């Protein structure tokens, strides 16, 4: 696994990874969760999906993850298979398995033996700061630590795309800030692409280089913003005037999107 800091290419020069083209998703009950959703995901992007509750953010992630199929339109992967890691709002660990066994899960399901991948597992645990807890059970960990295990599990196979559905929404502010910063470092180290669903304007600005603002009823892309601030980002960025200005822009865009539905 690569542990050196990788600089992703500038926004305009990234290769396309995935495309959602004119995707509709209607549920059997008649809810139109998504209508004409278009989204291009490039390698190295950190995309935030920002939008009010019920605008179809989770639905978009589930479509990309292949857990359901679009009613109309297409989801196309550029070259290679869909390799995905997922982090849910809850840590979603198996309580009967130790931390390292939980992180081993994606490999186990691919039929690889534990010894084969032990080094990968311990490296990723080290990256999330839990190497000492490899043999602990989830119940011995705090909420933030469980979420780290969940992130480690999503990253251990070094997937091309990592989907995160409001992963830090249930955590306290201090833990969330720390995890935000650590997530950025991890993302660069394993050179992956992230789609991150959030309700928080601040979180989306801090983390992402692209913010996709969505509107509800029916769910669709309202606007897209670019956060043109260099990585690595830290507390200096969080307290900068740029950050405040970007948050205001994103907040306005979100309110505009919510106005569209009213």
């Amino acid at each position, binding site marked *: 696994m690569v542990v050196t800091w990788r600089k992703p290419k500038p926004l305009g020069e990234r290769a396309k990874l995935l495309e959602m083209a004119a995707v509709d998703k209607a549920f059997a009950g008649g809810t139109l969760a998504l209508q004409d959703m278009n989204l291009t995901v490039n390698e190295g992007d950190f995309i935030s999906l920002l939008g009010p509750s019920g605008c179809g953010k989770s639905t978009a992630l589930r479509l990309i993850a292949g857990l359901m199929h679009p009613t109309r339109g297409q989801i196309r992967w550029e070259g290679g298979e869909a390799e995905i890691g997922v982090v849910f709002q809850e840590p979603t660990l198996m309580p009967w398995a130790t931390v390292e066994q939980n992180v081993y899960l994606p490999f*186990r399901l691919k039929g690889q033996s534990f010894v084969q991948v032990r080094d990968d597992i311990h490296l990723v645990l080290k990256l999330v700061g839990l190497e000492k807890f490899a043999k602990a059970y989830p119940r011995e960990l705090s909420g933030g630590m469980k979420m780290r295990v969940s992130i480690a599990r999503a990253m251990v196979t070094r997937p091309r795309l990592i989907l995160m559905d409001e992963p830090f929404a249930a955590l306290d502010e201090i833990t969330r800030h720390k995890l935000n910063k650590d997530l950025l470092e991890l993302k660069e180290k394993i050179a992956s692409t992230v789609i991150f669903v959030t309700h928080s304007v601040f979180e989306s600005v801090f983390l992402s280089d692209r913010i996709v603002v969505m509107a509800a009823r029916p769910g669709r892309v309202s606007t897209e913003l670019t956060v043109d601030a260099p990585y690595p980002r830290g507390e200096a960025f969080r307290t900068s005037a740029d950050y405040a200005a970007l948050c205001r822009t994103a907040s306005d865009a979100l309110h505009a999107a919510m106005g569209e539905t009213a």
Partner: protein
Amino acid sequence: MSLADPALAAGDTPVDADELARARARRRERVLRWLLPSVTVALMIVLWDRIVAWNEIPHYILPGPGLVAQTLVKDAPILLPALGVTLQITLMALAVAVVGGVGLAVLFSLSRWAEMCFYPFAVILQVTPVVSIAPLIFIYVDNRLAGLLLCAWIVAFFPILSNTTLGLNSTDHNLRDLYRIYGATRWQRLRYLQIPTALPYFLGGLRIAGGLSLIGAVVAEYVAGTGGIGSGLAFRILEAGYRLNIPRMFAALALIALTGVVIFAVLSLITHLMLHKWHESAIKREN
């Protein structure tokens, strides 16, 4: 990235008085948990003894505990083999109930069709009192042991089936999605997700089934009735009743009760050993 979790990182730091008091309370509770029930039972036996002695109740109406104990020793050559028979039927029925209950539950979880077709039969078997089916069973089944086993099994398998079925269907939906995303096979999902999820449910069912299989074995023997060689404790109770040998009835009864308690204790121990590392039910909170 550094982590500091005080609960886990604590070394030999000095402990405050409050903590010490709590530790003492825990120790006291550990002792009392055994002491109190033992003392209560002992007192009840003494009381029983005194009531019999003071009222000069004849032993063919209510024998005192001393006489029951004597009978237990004196009649051991009769009672112990009977206990062996009852125990054998009980344990065999429990084993078959585990295999049948878990097997059916896995089958049901693999095929919803099978569940829809056969679950009603399981419910019917469960809600029909075994005493009312047993006479029929002994008409159709020639082998007495097989008949007894069948009766005990009917009583014992349902809690295992229903609990295990519930457990296999109680997997976390996010984990299920995760398994799908990683392309898990049906078999992997069963083995790594559903079975561990179902384990606490199964063990809960097992503890109930342990007691029920003993009840099933005893009830079935009452119905089967035929005596002689190879008869269990139920038959000895019936027989002693006909002969008005009340002390022996009590002795046999005591053995059955003791057996039930031991079965429950052993199954509880197994449950604890299998779950204490991770399951909420087995975790002791400090405060």
